[in-house]
C-alpha cells in the first residue's frame, strides 16, 4: 500500500533555519544541517528545504549548500529557492537531490516546466504554489516572492498548466494559514485533489498530528507537509525539532484512512 507522506518543510534565510507566520516575521530556529541530521535519526518520510532569500534577492541557488544538504540527507530531499532554468535543475539533481521545487519561474513561464522535465524527468520537477484566497471571494490566487507579489493567476489554471507541461508533483502552500498552527485549509486541499491527477503535497497550518490526519481523511494518499509543527513544541513555541515515529505515523494514517476510499 502506498502511504501518505508526512514531510517536514524547512525554510532557510541568511544561512539559518527560520520559521515564518503568514510568510512574515522569520524566527531563527537553528542550523539546517543539524536539523537534517535529526530528521535522519527520526526517519522522516521526505524533507523539503526552501531557500526563501534567493528569489527575492534575484540570486542563484546556493549550490554549495545544496551539495552539503544532499550529502547529509538520508531521506528523499526536495530543494527549492531561486531556481529559474532547466540547467540549474539538472545541476541540483546531479548533486543528489531527488526533487527540485520551482515556483515563480514556473508560474511566470509554464513551458519552462517541459524543459526541466526533459532534463531530469517529470518525477523530479515539483511546482510550488503559494496561494492566498482572493479578497471577498472563494478562489485562490498564486503569489510569488514570499507572498509579496500577486501574480493574479488563478490556482486552478496554474495547476492545470503545470500538469499539462509535465510537472511531477505540486505543492500547495496556504499563505493565509502559514505558521498559524490552527489546521490546514481542508476545502482548498480537497479542491486541488479533485482538479489534478498529479501527486500533491499540502502545506500550511498544521498545529497537530490530527491536522495532518484530517488532510489524509479528506484527500487520501497525498503528501502532508508542515514547518512549525516539527520545529516548535508547546504554547510558547520553544524550538524543539520533533517528528512522529513509525508506530505513531502508522496509527495516525490508519485512524484517518477510510477503508473504502483509495485515491480520491
Amino acid at each position, binding site marked *: *500500500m*502506498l*502511504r*501518505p*507522506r508526512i514531510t517536514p518543510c524547512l525554510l532557510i534565510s541568511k544561512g539559518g533555519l527560520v520559521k515564518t507566520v503568514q510568510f512574515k516575521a522569520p524566527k531563527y530556529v537553528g542550523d539546517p544541517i543539524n536539523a537534517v541530521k535529526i530528521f535522519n535519526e527520526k*526517519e522522516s*518520510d*521526505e524533507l523539503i528545504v526552501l531557500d526563501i532569500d534567493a528569489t527575492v534577492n534575484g540570486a542563484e541557488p546556493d549550490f554549495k549548500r545544496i551539495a552539503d544538504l*544532499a*550529502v547529509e540527507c*538520508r*531521506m*528523499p530531499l526536495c530543494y527549492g529557492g531561486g531556481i529559474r532554468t532547466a540547467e540549474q535543475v539538472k545541476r541540483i*539533481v*546531479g548533486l*543528489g*537531490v*531527488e*526533487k527540485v521545487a520551482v515556483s515563480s519561474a514556473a508560474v511566470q513561464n509554464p513551458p519552462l516546466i517541459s524543459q526541466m522535465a*526533459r*532534463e*531530469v*524527468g*517529470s*518525477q*523530479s520537477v515539483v511546482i510550488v504554489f503559494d496561494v492566498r484566497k482572493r479578497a471577498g471571494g472563494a478562489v485562490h490566487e498564486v503569489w510569488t516572492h514570499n507572498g509579496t507579489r500577486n501574480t493574479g493567476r488563478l490556482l486552478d489554471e496554474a495547476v492545470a498548466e503545470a500538469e499539462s507541461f509535465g510537472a*511531477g*508533483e505540486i505543492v500547495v502552500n496556504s499563505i493565509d494559514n502559514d505558521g498559524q498552527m490552527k489546521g490546514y485549509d481542508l476545502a482548498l486541499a480537497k479542491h486541488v485533489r479533485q482538479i489534478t*491527477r*498529479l*501527486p*500533491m503535497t499540502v502545506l500550511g497550518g498544521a498545529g497537530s498530528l490530527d491536522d495532518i490526519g484530517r488532510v489524509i481523511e479528506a484527500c487520501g*494518499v497525498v*503528501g502532508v507537509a508542515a514547518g512549525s509543527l516539527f520545529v516548535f513544541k508547546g504554547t510558547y513555541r520553544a524550538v524543539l525539532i520533533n517528528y512522529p515515529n513509525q508506530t505513531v505515523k502508522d496509527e495516525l494514517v490508519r485512524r484517518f484512512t477510510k477503508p473504502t476510499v*483509495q*485515491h480520491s
Partner: protein
Amino acid sequence: MISVVDYGIGNIQAFLNVYKRLNIPARTATTPQALQGASKVILPGVGDFDHAMQRLDESGMRDALDALVLRDRIPVLGICVGMQMLARCSDEGARPGLGWVDGLVRGFKSLPPAASLPLPHMGWNDVLPVAGNRLFDQLDVGARFYFLHSYYFQCNRSEDSAATTTYGAAFSCAVNAGNIFGVQFHPEKSHHWGTRLLQNFAAL
C-alpha cells in the same frame, strides 16, 4: 571493493555515505580502468531512460561492465532507472537497454488500474520479496521503500522477479537473474530498510 558507476547520472554520494556508515569499502568508478578489480558494481540512475543510456555509452565503461557482469559474473545492482537499463528496451525511449535481464520497461499509463492513480508513483510502499532471495535477507516482513517513477520493469520470465509492489496493480519492483540484481525503489534513501538491502548486497 564495491564500485558505484559514476556516469553523470544519479546520487553516487548517497551510496558511498551508506557504505561509509557500514564500514564497507566502496568507491566511484568513472573510467573503465577504475572498474578493474571491482568485486561488485552498483549502477544508479534517475531521469530519462535514453539520456541515461546515452551517458553510460559515452562514459566508455560499457565494455568493461559487460566483461565484469557477463564474463566474470560479479554481482551488479541497478537502482531505479539503473534497474530499467538492465532490460532490453523501454517504452520511455528509443535506445536499446543493456539487455542483461529478459524484460522490457513499460509505462504505468498502459497498466490499468495503475493508470487511474496519480503518476508518478511517489512515496513509501510495501515490498514483498520472493522467499529466500538474499538481497532481501531480513526484509521479508514489513519492509517499505521509497519509490519515485512512472515506468516499471516487466519480466519476460517470471522467475526473474525478486519482489513485487502494488500500485493499483502488482508489478516487479526488484529483479534477479543470476548475478544481476535490480531494484526500482531507492534503497539509498529508504532509511534502515534500504541500509539493510545495501548491506545484503555487499554480503552476496
